[in-house]
């Protein structure tokens, strides 16, 4: 956006990550996605009188894991607070959250931008809270339908400092957080199911100005593409207002992906007074160094560490290592394929070129790949041990992708794809091709050596691609140069 001119963009993100637990943060109801409405909303989630919340151990462990992953300080004594407001998807009339003493304080992440430069973004805090239910406004006889299955789902709200200066930086930061939480097993990161939602605080100010401009908060953006679009729209809108002599109003806005615009959420002045106070139903949660050390000991390898290991252990280029380690499932897939075929180079090539090509084309996640790592590993192994040629390998790959083939060895046997390496058999075919093409033989002998390719092609055709190309080359050249 070159027309920004004298304006500097200031962005801070609040990212709500759904923690991947079996049960809710304060109740033993299931958090499984996609259940029939209200079948996973128990008395605690419904806010029935007399119920008491009990904290889920795993929620705490995941929050601490995340905190350690960004080098943050872990609050050894954290307290839950009530945030009071009325909305039908919040039956208790308050949300249990952490205001004064959040579990994670500080920390930072390093983002890498498209031009290769990197930037450190500081995290202010990350706190635990419960999610609300879902309101459905359509088709209920002019009433609102409430599904409370999501109520009480554990969330970690990660709040950044307002240190991002463009939509690109904000997206890079959000992507990094997404990568981190999935790598750490803190969240499944499934954005279409709402496991990662961003609120973008955006303001603009003149370059060199110290104080921040008035910000707006665009809520619940659930894709990286929408995040970029929403921020860019908001920046344009604010520049438009300020340049025409207006004033930006501090407010909450919603992003409409269909119209590609943000619009004001109508809210009463008083609605922002949440009257927080310490949650009387929960005692402070106290952990010690031993607890933190135990969580640290169980931390999985982080993406950057894994990329470094890929370069050292498998001699991959830094670019390939970064790509293959960018996603936990992809990194695991690569290591599984390599373990089976025994050679990281072709494993990397097949995954990056062939597999990722098709996955991207069909918009499929690696975890949903129709081609299991075991089969790709075996396929590469069969090429490396000369059972099949590389060309036939592509054919088998296609068959596996389309589900025509289930097992590499069965398919090779069943389709008769085994490479012809028997020199007697191959010699007979070479002789036949030479005998069938006397004119070309004459031209070759007269010096038109380019025809080598023609003979090899004919032989590959005769053998339906099953001949070992190295062997064919050697045979043809020895026959023709006799």
């Amino acid at each position: 956006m070159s027309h920004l001119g004298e304006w500097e963009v200031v962005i801070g993100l609040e990212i709500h990550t759904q923690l991947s637990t079996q049960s809710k943060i304060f109740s033993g109801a299931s958090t499984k996605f996609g259940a029939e409405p209200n079948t996973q909303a128990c008395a605690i989630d419904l806010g029935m009188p007399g119920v008491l919340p009990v904290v889920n151990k795993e929620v705490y462990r995941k929050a601490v894991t995340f905190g350690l992953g960004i080098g943050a300080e872990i609050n050894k004594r954290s307290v839950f607070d009530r945030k009071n407001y009325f909305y039908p998807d919040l039956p208790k009339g308050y949300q249990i959250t952490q205001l004064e003493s959040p579990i994670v304080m500080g920390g930072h992440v390093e983002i890498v931008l498209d031009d290769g430069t990197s930037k450190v973004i500081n995290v202010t805090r990350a706190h635990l809270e419960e999610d609300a239910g879902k309101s459905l406004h359509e088709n209920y006889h002019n009433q609102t339908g409430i599904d409370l299955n999501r109520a009480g789902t554990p969330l970690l709200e990660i709040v950044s400092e307002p240190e991002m200066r463009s939509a690109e930086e904000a997206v890079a930061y959000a992507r990094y957080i997404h990568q981190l939480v999935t790598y750490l097993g803190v969240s499944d990161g499934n954005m279409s199911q709402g496991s990662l939602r961003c609120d973008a605080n955006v303001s603009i100010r003149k370059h060199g100005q110290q104080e921040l401009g008035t910000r707006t908060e665009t809520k619940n953006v659930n894709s990286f593409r929408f995040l970029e679009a929403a921020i860019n729209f908001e920046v344009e809108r604010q520049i438009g207002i300020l340049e025409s002599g207006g004033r930006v109003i501090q407010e909450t806005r919603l992003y409409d992906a269909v119209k590609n615009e943000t619009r004001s959420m109508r809210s009463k002045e008083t609605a922002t007074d949440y009257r927080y106070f310490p949650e009387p139903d929960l005692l402070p949660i106290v952990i010690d160094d031993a607890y933190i050390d135990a969580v640290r000991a169980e931390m999985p390898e982080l993406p950057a560490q894994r990329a470094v290991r890929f370069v050292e252990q498998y001699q991959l280029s830094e670019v390939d290592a970064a790509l293959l380690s960018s996603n936990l499932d992809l990194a695991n897939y690569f290591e599984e394929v390599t373990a089976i075929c025994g050679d990281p180079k072709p494993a990397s090539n097949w995954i990056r070129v062939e597999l990722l090509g098709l996955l991207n084309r069909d918009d499929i996640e690696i975890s949903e790949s129709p081609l299991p790592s075991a089969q790709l590993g075996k396929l590469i192994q069969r090429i490396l041990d000369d059972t099949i040629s590389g060309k036939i390998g592509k054919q088998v790959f296609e068959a596996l992708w389309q589900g025509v083939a289930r097992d590499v060895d069965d398919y090779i046997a069943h389709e008769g794809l085994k490479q012809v390496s028997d020199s007697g058999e191959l010699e007979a075919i070479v002789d036949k091709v030479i005998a069938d093409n006397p004119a070309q033989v004459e031209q070759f002998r007269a010096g038109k050596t380019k025809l080598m390719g023609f003979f090899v092609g004919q032989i590959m055709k005769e053998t339906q691609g099953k001949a070992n190309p190295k062997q064919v080359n050697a045979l043809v050249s020895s026959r023709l140069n006799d």
Partner: protein
Amino acid sequence: MKIDNEVILNIAELAQLEVKDEMISQYADKMTAMLNLIEEMQSVNTDNIEPVSNPLDAVQTMREDKVTEKDLRDEYQAIAPEVDSGLYLVPRVVE
């Protein structure tokens, strides 16, 4: 600190409570008295004293991450004013 009638009306609205007109100034007086008491307590020196967020001198125990709740939707919805297709129905809320 003095709580006036306007503050009472604001708090009542936030809490979704109905307050009778004749009660407003009574509430204002009582709350002002409470805040005066708190002000008095705040004059005590509390340097180096950890704030008490719960009167019980204990820490929270946590539970295992296990699904222990059964689906009791039918029972809960039997006492709900209105339901449809498994959803609780409420007066329309517009976003």
